[in-house]
């Protein structure tokens, strides 16, 4: 495999059992298998930010957890700097985990409320046995807290998370992710719980840290505007599959998949969408468990016709430079 890429995800698949259904169904053990992630393939270059965008339950968080090896895949392979890490265990795994970190959506949930900031931030060092003395611990904590803009860092060390504002908490969470000097940070909707006026600060901080520490990022969001601001490339996911992937300007100014088109319209011209919503998406709700073996967007697509119902899911096809779409209506 090529060493040029930091991460290569190759045809990742992950299924979950659903427990939906009546009592009888449970007795019969006829549980439905649902693809949480299906045929997900992408590559991530060093210092690149890729955005995973889609609605809740579309598999973006599952994909992230697979990248962090918090979940094992059923099928497919994962490469880190050209090395196959799909089946890493124990020692190799903990080496890999030092290089990848996550920032969660809700920093309040993510930080142990019983620990002070000093212990929260330095915990990754403790786990990886890199703490020799109390002085080293404080120095490292101060250094990393300053780099996330918590000044003066010393005044934060012995405080608890409930004493901080939402933005400060998220900064602590980022500091904790940074302290092991990772190559890859997965940011799972890091600003969706924050107020607009604070959000900008966190986004700019992440962009600054990317340059300062040569980070790559997987940025998960449901907001296309944020993705446009943060990412180099955007992958749009729907029901566990990537339906469109490409450079952000291609995705936002030249969307090809009907789902992406609707997302772009909602994010950038909501007024037009509200007036002409029927030309973008079919009204009504869709059961997210329902899956078929052709196009997954079928139920909500305004371009759907009989041709779409051929066997097999739509294959990715190239429609521009680095721009791929899984829709049979999108020829060159």
């Amino acid at each position, binding site marked *: 495999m090529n060493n040029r890429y930091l991460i290569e995800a190759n045809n990742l698949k992950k299924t979950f059992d659903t427990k939906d259904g009546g009592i009888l169904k449970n007795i019969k053990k006829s549980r439905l298998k649902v693809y949480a992630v299906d045929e997900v393939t992408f590559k991530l270059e060093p210092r690149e930010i890729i955005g995973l965008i889609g*609605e809740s339950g579309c598999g973006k968080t599952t994909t992230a957890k697979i990248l962090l090896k918090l979940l094992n895949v059923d099928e497919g392979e994962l490469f880190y700097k050209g090395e196959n890490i799909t089946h890493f265990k124990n020692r190799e795994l903990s080496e890999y985990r030092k290089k990848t970190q996550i920032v969660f959506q809700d920093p309040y949930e993510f930080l142990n409320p019983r620990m002070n900031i000093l212990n929260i931030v330095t915990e990754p060092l403790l786990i990886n046995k890199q703490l020799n003395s109390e002085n080293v611990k404080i120095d490292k904590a101060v250094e990393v807290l300053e780099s996330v803009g918590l000044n003066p860092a010393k005044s934060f060390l012995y405080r608890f998370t409930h004493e901080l504002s939402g933005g400060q908490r998220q900064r602590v969470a980022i500091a904790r992710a940074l302290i092991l000097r990772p190559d890859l940070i997965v940011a799972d909707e890091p600003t969706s719980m924050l107020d607009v006026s604070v959000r900008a*600060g966190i986004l700019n901080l992440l962009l600054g840290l990317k340059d300062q520490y040569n980070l790559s990022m997987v940025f998960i969001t*449901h907001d296309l*505007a944020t993705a446009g601001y943060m990412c180099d490339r955007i992958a749009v996911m729907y029901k566990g599959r990537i339906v469109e992937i490409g450079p952000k300007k291609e995705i936002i100014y030249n969307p090809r998949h009907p789902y992406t088109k609707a997302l772009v319209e909602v994010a950038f011209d909501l007024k037009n*969408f*509200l007036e002409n919503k029927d030309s973008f998406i079919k009204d009504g*709700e869709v059961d997210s468990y329902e899956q078929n073996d052709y196009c997954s967007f079928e139920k909500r697509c305004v371009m759907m016709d009989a041709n779409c119902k051929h066997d097999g899911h739509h294959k990715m096809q190239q429609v521009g430079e680095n721009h791929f779409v899984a829709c049979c209506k999108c020829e060159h």
Partner: protein
Amino acid sequence: MALLEVRNLTTYYETKIGYNEALQGLSFDLEAGGILGLIGESGCGKSTAGFSMMNMIEYPGKIMDGEVILDGKDLIKMDRNELRKVLWKDIAMIPQSAMNALNPAYKVGKQILEAIKLHFPEMSQEEAVAKVEHLLNLVGIDAKWYHGYPHKLSGGMKQRIIIAMALSCDPKVIISDEATTGLDVLIEAQILALLKKIALDRGLGLIIISHDLNMVTAICNRIGIMYAGMLVELTTTENVLRNPKHPYTRALFSSQIDSKDFDKKVTSVDGVVPKLVNPEDKCRFYDRCNRKFEMCERKCPSLISISDNHRVACYLEGDNHE
């Protein structure tokens, strides 16, 4: 005459160390068919505003002052019995966590039916059922769901049911308190489109309480920006977009991402919202404002008209200099 007049509405919360002045002097008019957005960040008092307008504030909260005049009647002066007749029938609310507002043990249609029967006891069973079916149809839910249970519905569908319930007694004003927060963007947009259409078709007054600038500017024709319990700017959507006056409004827009130019840096507002328990009498945005001067520290500015349909609470605008 306006459909709904809110005058100097003031709500405080009792705390151990004094009153938390969560809502201070909220005033606005709402015309029939008008869609007003109340926008602000967490802790700005926008939800308190919603509940105060319905006179539904409970201890430790207390409405200290103000009038909410709907059809010439003041909701704040009503006792519980009078209020019960007005709420839902004249003014209805779609609450924040609408998903949990449905009783899981009853069929969806039954729950709407209950609401109708409570307010129209003279209506016959057939009429009422027909009305429920009509409402379900209106919010884009198949009539077969009349006999469905809430846990079978997705979040967006539950939200639609709640809208149907809010509409069930033909209210004149609907308050939507972050009603679509937490839904997926496409579902949210579809529901907003539905709300807007219903409001315009029926000539309702709609108040949208939200933190989402993009959403509010797209759906509302007038917007009130709230900060720390006070309305700091109240004007038409055009004015907010083209000609924002209050420094906080401007700050909000500079923290928004520009869809035309992703390289343009967004800026955040430094500092935190001031404590609202026994606040000092200075502009509440003083600590975070980049255009403050000595005047701002002496007295909190009040909302004054600077032109037709444009009211701002800032000493930099109009002749607010005492």
